[in-house]
């Protein structure tokens, strides 16, 4: 099997998440194949001529074999992807990397802390938990974004809040003119005081800017959350997804295959990280 050879994936639907993000629902062109993905993993998504980059799945595994990527326009490839519409083809390789620990955290209270587009990889985890809601304890989601308009998936918040024993707390850094906000303002760790979750039986899952995850993890360690039950999802430059191109290395870890989901304790003491 050639891990460098991408598969064609047809865009079967798109959904804009203004101001700068777009979701793509895809299925492999070859009906006989499907991606055996797990929430938290990623694909290398490419458009010939514009390159290829890692993007996590934004939906859990689907019965029909379709999968979703939700992509924010920040670079050459992602900006070009904003113009891709249903019917067009992307080239994907994957799935790669580790997944959220859905099995290991069964029975535990879950604290999910997301920052900005860090919610994208956490959404499939939440949706899988909601599918088997009774198998998990209390679920508390703390979600921070720069502005109210960047609270991605806000159209789903009501559904999430209607799940039993599930709580969603929001915060934004700033409210630009023209937007309204009557909720909390400030960094996401500012929501810790109202999270209402005890460390003893809790697992933490976090994704966002690395500097945010630093303060989340360290803040929770001070609150006696155990380092082996804090899971972080990291971003690094990646060209291969297979542990060969070397870009994603963090100490002895290859973020593409040993991660992107790590237990916080696995990463202690390495340089070149903000954690």
């Amino acid at each position: 099997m050639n891990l460098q050879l991408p598969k064609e994936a047809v865009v079967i639907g798109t959904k804009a998440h203004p101001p700068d993000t777009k979701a793509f629902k895809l299925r492999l062109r070859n009906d006989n194949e499907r991606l055996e993905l797990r929430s938290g993993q990623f694909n290398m998504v490419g458009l010939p001529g514009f390159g290829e980059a890692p993007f996590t799945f934004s939906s859990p595994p689907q019965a029909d074999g379709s999968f979703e990527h939700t992509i924010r326009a920040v670079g050459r490839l992602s900006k070009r992807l904003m113009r891709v519409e249903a019917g067009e083809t992307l080239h994907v390789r994957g799935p790669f990397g580790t997944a959220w620990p859905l099995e290991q955290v069964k029975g535990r209270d879950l604290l999910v802390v997301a920052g900005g587009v860090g919610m994208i990889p956490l959404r499939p985890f939440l949706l899988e938990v909601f599918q088997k809601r009774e198998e998990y304890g209390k679920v508390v989601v703390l979600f921070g974004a720069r502005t109210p308009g960047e609270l991605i998936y806000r159209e789903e918040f009501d559904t999430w809040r209607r799940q039993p024993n599930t709580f969603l707390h929001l915060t934004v850094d700033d409210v630009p003119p023209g937007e309204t906000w009557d909720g909390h303002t400030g960094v996401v760790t500012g929501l810790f005081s109202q999270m209402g979750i005890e460390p003893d039986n809790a697992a933490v899952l976090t994704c966002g800017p690395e500097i945010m995850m630093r303060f989340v993890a360290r803040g929770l360690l001070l609150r006696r959350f155990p380092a082996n039950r804090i899971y972080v999802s990291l971003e690094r430059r990646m060209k291969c997804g297979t542990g060969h191109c070397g870009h994603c290395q963090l100490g002895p870890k290859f973020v593409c295959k040993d991660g992107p989901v790590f237990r916080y304790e696995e990463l202690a003491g390495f340089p070149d990280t903000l954690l």
Partner: protein
Amino acid sequence: MTDQVSARVASVEQTAEWIELLRRDYEVVAPVKTGKTTSFRPLAEGLEVDWDYTITTIPASKTIYSPQETLVRFARTEEGYRAEEVVPEKRKRILFGVHPCDLHGTLVLERTFLGEMKDANYASLRANYLIVGLNCQSIGEKCFCASVGTGPFYGYWMGQGPPQGCDVLLTDLGGRFLVETFGVNGVRLLAGVEASPPTPDDIGEKLKREAAAKERFRKSLDTRDLPSLLRRNLNHPTWRITGEGRCLSCTNCTMVCPTCFCYDIWERVGLDLSVIERIRVWDSCQDERFAEVHGGNFRSTREARLRQFVCHKLSYWVEQFGCYGCVGCGRCMTWCPTGIDLAEIAAEIRADEERK
């Protein structure tokens, strides 16, 4: 019969005839003098094997893993582009006269490309090659394979060694060669070659020459507890002083290293857009943009990049692959324009710790 190690002795003339014989069926890539240095080149008329070379600039492993290769070709269709596999050229080659540091370097590189997740291109290219090793008796000023354990004669090191990595191994005994074969391919390469079985004197001569070669090393790397020594010293001042004070980020160290595997992916777009090629090119952790992501760079300083290179080779690698990423060939320090020397850095850190 075929898996056994067998040995024989060939005269210089018989060895020369053997190489001619090999050239009929294979492209023989061997060390040849190119100006003031020696490089691996396909043997052609008028080119002779440089039997006494010390080290090439570009390592043997990078004959297989080349600076640039096409991985995928996208051909234009009505709906967009169809990805096509690019199968590397099938060609029978012999990588000839490879010193033990490079034999081990190739095996180390292959722990990346032929490990748990296989790189199809490398595997396909590697299948073209048989390897003829040459025990090394020409010890250079920067060579320290003996203290790492990979040379100067080929043997078992950190879970790898013969019969892997080498099909035939030559030792210059002075006017004659000891020729040892490993496995089926080694035996096949020697088919039809006139040679006599080695005498106890020949074996004794090999041992004597190995001992003599070991005496000639002027450089060493103390590997005692080395991975954890470095892990304990990730904040040692040498990273800043050497990195910021001397490193030019030229990437030479990584370009000449036999075990460096990092690559970048580029896309080459034809002017008429009919074909787009996805190519890989060697990349370097010493390049400023290597660890850059949107919104930041995890190794924006030369201090961080130098620490990454040295700690990867001498510490992280052991955790990743079960062996050092350094085989003691000395190339990185030879080709560093400011003479940065990872063995000296390790020694400096050790000395500081021992003083405490």
